């Protein structure tokens, strides 16, 4: 099997398992929705216009839900023993990385597709433009690229659910800052072309950490 066949097989396996249990999607979605609602009450009385805090709400909700999903994806894999099965398979470790990465990415996109319209309804604004979606796509990719490696690390530690956010959030900060900044500027009516710096930083982050993850994932999965 070629490299991308292996990647495809792993993604397909994750999708099929998810379609049967709906375990990851439901927990991510409910948590994202709860975050949006909790933030609504956390900010409402202090902020002149909710539009000002919506970028932060969107990105924090995505990060929280994403952390939950990454954890679930790997914990299920380990508890059912399928992680050991994956490692025994005669395939390249980086193919496992890209397979898990794409699976996590798909789940996060699925949650975003549902949560974005809700945010738009709750806060009466539009996030449905190509620019908004591009920013979300780049940010979510960066999140998943780093998160997949750290989830594989965290699942092997004591207190595995606690470890992932502690490891992930400080490394994730550039993506969060750039994401909040760009979503906010787009909501204020600026064009994406004026935000070149931020796009660059996200692109550098995405590409750079994909390379580092590709190079190091084999060491994480070594048994």
């Amino acid at each position, binding site marked *: 099997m070629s490299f991308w066949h292996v990647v495809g097989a792993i993604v397909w396996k994750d999708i099929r398992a998810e379609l049967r249990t709906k375990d990851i999607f439901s927990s991510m979605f409910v948590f994202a929705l709860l975050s949006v609602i909790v933030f609504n009450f956390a900010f409402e009385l202090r902020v002149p216009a909710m539009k000002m805090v919506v970028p932060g709400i969107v990105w924090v909700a995505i990060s929280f839900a994403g952390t939950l999903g990454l954890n679930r994806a790997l914990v299920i894999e380990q508890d059912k023993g399928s992680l050991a099965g994956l490692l025994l398979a005669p395939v390249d470790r980086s193919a496992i990385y890209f397979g898990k990465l794409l699976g996590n990415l798909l789940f996060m996109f699925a949650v975003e597709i549902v949560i974005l319209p809700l945010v738009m309804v709750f806060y009466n604004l539009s996030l449905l433009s190509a620019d908004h979606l591009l920013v979300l796509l780049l940010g979510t990719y960066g999140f998943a690229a780093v998160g997949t*490696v750290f989830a594989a690390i965290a699942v092997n530690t004591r207190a595995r659910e606690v470890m992932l956010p502690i*490891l992930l959030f*400080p*490394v994730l900060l*550039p993506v969060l*800052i750039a994401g909040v900044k760009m979503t906010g500027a787009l909501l204020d009516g600026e064009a994406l072309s004026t935000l070149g710096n*931020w796009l660059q930083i996200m692109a550098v982050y995405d590409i750079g*950490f994909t390379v*580092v993850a590709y190079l190091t994932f084999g060491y994480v999965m070594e048994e």
Partner: protein
Amino acid sequence: MSRTNGLLMSATIVCAGLMLAAAFGALVLAPNAVGLTPDETFAQRIIYFHVPSAWLSMLAFGITTIASIAYLVTARRFWDSVAVSSAEIGIVFTLAATASGSLWAKPAWNTWWTWDPRLTTYTIMFLLYVAYFMLRSALEDPARRARFAAVYGIFAFLSVPITFMSIRWWRTIHPILIDSKDFGLSRGMLPVFFLSLIAFTALYVILLIYRVRLERTREQVDALRERFGY
């Protein structure tokens, strides 16, 4: 062994002398800064402590990253010992630089803390290496701990410059604070400043040697304990 011990002891004494000389230079020999209020003039002398501490923290985390890569390539326990020892020294000097910077900021900026890019990045860096140690403490198998910590160490160090860039663009509303940091040093200050840098770097090397030896000893004790079942 006794010969290396003797060498290390002499190096330690030389380093202690350098540190004392640097402290004397910073407090007595260095000229006063001109054009500042009395409080600021006094606080300005913290630069001989603050900048070398900050430099040491960066150096220490840099060495941690290099040792982490070396561990992944060679799988020798020695490199893991270097990585963890250096990271520990780095955390201590991060705190030293933050505390001394805060003492200077009160008279100079009239606040203990501000969300300036450098300060924010530094805080994030501190949190990254706190996470590094939390990760280590959550893993029992030494080989796995070393491998995971090495991978995380590489990610952590690479994210620091990107974080700095992103925060610098983000917080452009405080240009005055950033600019006020870039004061030049007068001619009389430079020798003392470089003496401090050298003394602190020597201190780092000595601390690292002691700390790595301690780590190696700890590993041997653990191995012995396992062998005899204590």
